[in-house]
């Protein structure tokens, strides 16, 4: 019984991923966001560091911008997913279905995160073309492992926010606010040393902070123990998933108790 249940869940997850990837591939909106934002943000951040005579921070700016784009895409599309389901009148059906909403959105968000990895490539390409920066990754294996882990973890973090989108119509506004604190607190393109010390616990609780550390270290040097950073990301992903699970159950309960989603 449990094996059948697991198989069914995996099937829904797989279908959800495939459907979302198909949707992204034909979405001009998604493609434009995926390409334009990394280009613009890379030019702004790397250009500012070069103007300030700090070319050594160019690579830091590029990896930071790549993570900015992955996070932004994930959050933006998560908000857009719920908004679209609501507009087309299918959100209620998705919630009423026996499959948990979390599983469906996990698949869709993961698909977004996978496709948004392309943004990392766009940022590196922009750095090379626009600024002729000598960009090479010192430890490609560690970089790749870190990227996979951070993409999964960002998906989990996106799910925490995604649950709130079900019970608000202000997802768009929320997305525009939730972006910048994560950029700043995670030290994406801006050093964490600029922030007051009391913000450190907040930074530690955000997975892009650790992803940024791994990607930057892997980009500039091939040695160093990455295990603590990996463990932070895995641990945080587990915490996000637990929080998201509770939030989705609560949201589903609220929606089922009200018998409608119209009141949100």
């Amino acid at each position, binding site marked *: 019984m449990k094996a059948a249940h697991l198989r069914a869940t995996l099937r829904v997850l797989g279908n959800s991923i495939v459907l979302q990837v198909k949707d992204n591939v034909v979405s001009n909106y998604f493609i434009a966001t995926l390409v334009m934002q990394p280009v*613009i*943000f890379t030019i702004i951040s790397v*250009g*500012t*560091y070069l*103007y300030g005579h700090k070319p050594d921070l160019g690579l830091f700016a590029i990896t930071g911008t790549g993570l900015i784009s992955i996070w932004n895409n994930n959050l933006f599309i998560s908000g857009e997913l719920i908004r679209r389901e609501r507009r087309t009148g299918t959100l209620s059906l998705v919630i009423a279905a026996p499959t948990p909403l979390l599983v469906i959105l996990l698949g869709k968000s993961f698909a977004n995160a996978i496709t948004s990895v392309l943004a990392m490539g766009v940022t590196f390409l922009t750095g090379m073309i626009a600024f002729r920066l000598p960009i090479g990754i010192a430890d490609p294996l560690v970089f790749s492992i870190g990227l996979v882990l951070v993409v999964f973890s960002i998906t989990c973090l996106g799910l925490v926010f995604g649950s709130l989108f079900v019970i608000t119509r202000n997802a768009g506004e929320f997305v525009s606010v939730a972006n910048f604190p994560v950029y700043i607190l995670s030290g994406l393109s801006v*050093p964490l040393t*600029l922030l007051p010390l009391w913000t450190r616990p907040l930074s530690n609780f955000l997975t892009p902070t650790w992803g940024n550390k791994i990607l930057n270290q892997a980009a500039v040097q091939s040695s160093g123990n990455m295990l603590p950073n990996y463990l932070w990301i895995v641990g945080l992903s587990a915490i996000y998933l637990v929080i998201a699970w509770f939030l989705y159950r609560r949201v589903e309960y609220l929606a089922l108790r009200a018998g409608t989603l119209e009141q949100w």
Partner: protein
Amino acid sequence: MLAKYATMLRADLRLFWSGVRASWATYLVELTPTVFFGFRIPRILLQSLFFVFLAKAAGGDQLARFAMIGNGIQIAVFMVMLSMEEVIESEKWNSTFQYLIAAPSSWFPSMLGKSASYFGDALIASTVSFAVLIPALHIQILPLDLLRATPIILLIFISASALGWSIGAFSLPIRYGYMICNWFAYAMIIFCGINIPTSAMPAWVQVIGNLLPVTHGLQAVRALIDGATYASVWPLVGKEILIALFYAAAAWLVFGYRMRVTRQNGNFELV
């Protein structure tokens, strides 16, 4: 003859006032206190903060000051451009475009009125950004110097609005006007010298920047804040006015063209 013009003027003013009321009503519906204080104000502050931090990390306090002036204005430019694009595009999505075409009166005063509340929104954005971030980040800008530059800041909002209108008018037949305007507004951080001076950019970036709103106005604002006189920044102000007029004229002509073609083809559903 004079009486006829007076009647037309009164009708236009009435239309303008109706537009203002509609704009204000929409603004209040969209921006509930929760949205305004919970989302809008934090977004204004955090976006400016991110780019000022970036400048501080790159060039210390001097570049942070430069970026603070730029981003305090850019955040309002960003919002006003998107709002103006939406004023045009919403006619399509709300299915009111055909009424504008069919109405015997001029569309211009009513559209101008519909944009009114967003100027106020832009002013709030800049004021909040400067009022909170300058003291919080200990940036050396005197409030009096900022006040002295206010007329030019308002001019920048108007010229950015004209660009927003023209993007809205050009992109009316497609579905991605808002997105195009969004990226345009971000790209202006590069082209208009928001974070770093345009003089540090490649020549082709400077050429594009010189053709966009904000670039010259912002240079005038920076000069005024640093103590220059209005007489000395007049050439920059003149260029900003000319650019504003150019984009406003482009918006007016293209929107009028869209209406004319739609009327001829009778296919407003496709717009």
